[in-house]
């Protein structure tokens, strides 16, 4: 990958990282109400995979969605204010940090682990049947690979040859449960064989690798060779949620060892070795931080949704006249 392209990916990862830091800060100030699921350490997965999608491509995300959303290009304003429960959020502030939709940007996420895989088959089926120039990407974690929904979806997608890229973002822990103990095989990607699919694993902390694999697989899916399942090996540098009892399931040494493999650190080192000026990278960072500071100030001024908004769209008025003679 040339230096210019890599620097672009680095910038995108920086945005995801600084956005996550802003959310952490807002969480400590009670401006994010629900449990917050930090994304630090996994940016090369979001940027490498989700960042490659076009606006019309479908992205199904998880309960840890903001990195994916920002990388896909869902406006940071609407992601941030959704997490803060404000009207300007992409779900009008009704969903919060782990369940929201942006129809215009084709982004969907939800907080039931494994639930998005079956839904991906429907997007894939509609894309294939309507011959649309779109693909569907479905993100999930190591924990989701243990659900029944995972199996049903992979089998259906495989027998119907659907244009879906299933990306397993293995961050090593399903809440407090280590994948090394709770996943029956050495690699989750090995499970692809059971569906007649290729076994593909990528270093999820290497953005050049994730982008290379994503480019290859999406091109093949667009040619009709889908679906694919890829496992991206990464690490969740923070707790499952802010303040989780980390000492119950992992050591400080383990986290530190992965911190040395931080995807931003690695990419920064490569860029510096390629002759990029450190002050230039610092300026990029300052620019992102300044934008996010302004965004935060704006977000804190946004109104909360009303009671009417929270009930308006639960049921669409029935299509046929004469029904629903409610008293």
């Amino acid at each position, binding site marked *: 990958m040339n230096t210019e392209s890599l620097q672009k990916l680095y910038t995108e990862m920086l945005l995801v990282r600084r956005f996550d830091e802003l959310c952490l800060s807002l969480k400590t100030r009670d401006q994010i109400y629900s449990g917050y699921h930090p994304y630090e350490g996994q940016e090369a997965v979001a940027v490498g995979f989700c960042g490659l999608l076009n606006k019309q491509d479908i992205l199904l995300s998880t309960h840890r969605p903001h990195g994916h959303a920002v990388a896909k290009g869902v406006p940071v304003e609407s992601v941030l204010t959704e997490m803060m429960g404000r009207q300007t959020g992409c779900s009008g502030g009704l969903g919060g940090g782990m369940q929201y939709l942006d129809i215009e940007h084709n982004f969907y996420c939800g907080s039931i682990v494994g*639930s998005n895989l079956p839904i991906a088959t429907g997007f894939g*089926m*509609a894309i294939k049947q309507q011959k649309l120039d779109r693909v569907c990407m479905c993100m999930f974690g190591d924990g989701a690979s243990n659900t029944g*929904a995972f199996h049903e979806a992979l*089998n*259906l997608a495989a027998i119907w040859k659907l244009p879906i890229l299933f990306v397993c973002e293995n961050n090593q822990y399903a809440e407090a449960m280590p994948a090394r103990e709770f996943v029956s095989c050495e690699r989750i990607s090995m499970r692809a064989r059971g569906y007649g699919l290729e076994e593909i694993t990528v270093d999820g902390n290497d953005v050049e690798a994730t982008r290379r694999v994503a480019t290859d697989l999406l091109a093949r899916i667009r040619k009709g060779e889908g679906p694919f399942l890829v496992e991206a090996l990464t690490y969740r540098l923070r707790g499952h949620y802010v303040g989780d009892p980390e000492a119950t399931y992992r050591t400080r040494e383990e986290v530190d060892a992965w911190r040395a493999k931080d995807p931003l650190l690695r990419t920064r080192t490569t860029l510096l070795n390629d002759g990029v000026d450190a002050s230039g990278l610092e300026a990029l960072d300052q620019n992102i931080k300044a934008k996010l500071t302004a965004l935060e100030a704006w977000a804190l001024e946004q109104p909360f949704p009303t009671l009417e908004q929270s009930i308006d769209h*639960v*049921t669409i008025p029935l299509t046929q006249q004469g*029904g629903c003679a*409610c008293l």
Partner: protein
Amino acid sequence: MSVITYGEAIRQAYREEMLRDKNVCLMGEDVGRWGSLYRSSKGLLEEFGPEQVKDTPISEAAIAGCAVGCAALGMRPIAEIMYIDFITIAMDVMVNHAAKWPQLSNGKLKLPIVFKTQGGAGRRNSSQHSQSLENWFVNVPGLIVVMPATPYDVKGLLKSAIRDDNPVVFIEHKALYFEKGEVPDEEYLIPLGKAEVKRAGTDVTIIATSWMVLFALKAAAQLQQEGISCEVVDPRTLWPLDKQTLVQSVKKTGLCLVVTEAPEEGGWSGEASSVIHEHCFSTLKKPVKRHCSIRTGIPYGPVLERQIVPGDESIMKAVRELVKGV
């Protein structure tokens, strides 16, 4: 008018809607090759092809999930769950996604899905193939719940459900597929959320759902000979509930029996009863009475099954108790 079975009425509804709109598709276990368990989609795979009629693996979560995804891209899927007992596997998609996404999209996303299934006893299938689980869905904001009892109703309501932009849980009854009834030869629709008075009467209102409507009508015919005039009201749609039609009837008769196949505890029968108490309190001669299945797993043998589930004899007994106090 033609006299056709409930199953044939369903088949005609599918066919008419698939011809009208190629985005309408049916997916589920054995809907294609078999034409569904009770042949209600017989011949449709041959006529419409696999893009509109899709056999699926035994994967209820994937069937329901597939429906949500393709509906989000403009298709109008009918996702068939072969027995309502299997719907437990599809519940996550239905309750956590189909019912929530339209709200989370601020009305920008429509999910015109029919989750079609069949429930109830009557075919000696025991406790994992005979349940009446409609109450679960009435309890979920964002879902419409329909339970048609006759060939005329099932056809008109299914066509409306397919055309409606909300996720609809459409619950047929396995004991009804071979029941016959008159259906117009020309096209018609029945609005969702509209009850029907199936038999007019003056002494007592029987509110009954699905299979129980047939027993209520039988009981009403018998009771007429005893001098008790029963009005039988079928809500047809459990939610949204046509309270007006129910209330009007009870205001006229002053007595009300609610009959459901689902056990009464925590169920829709309690909702109906409460609506009547709230709106007819001053005209009620006695409290609303409920007659529902005994709270147990449906037993296998035909004798016990009949004892657990209400029938015409037991409905007659309940009405006599209500009217005469005996």
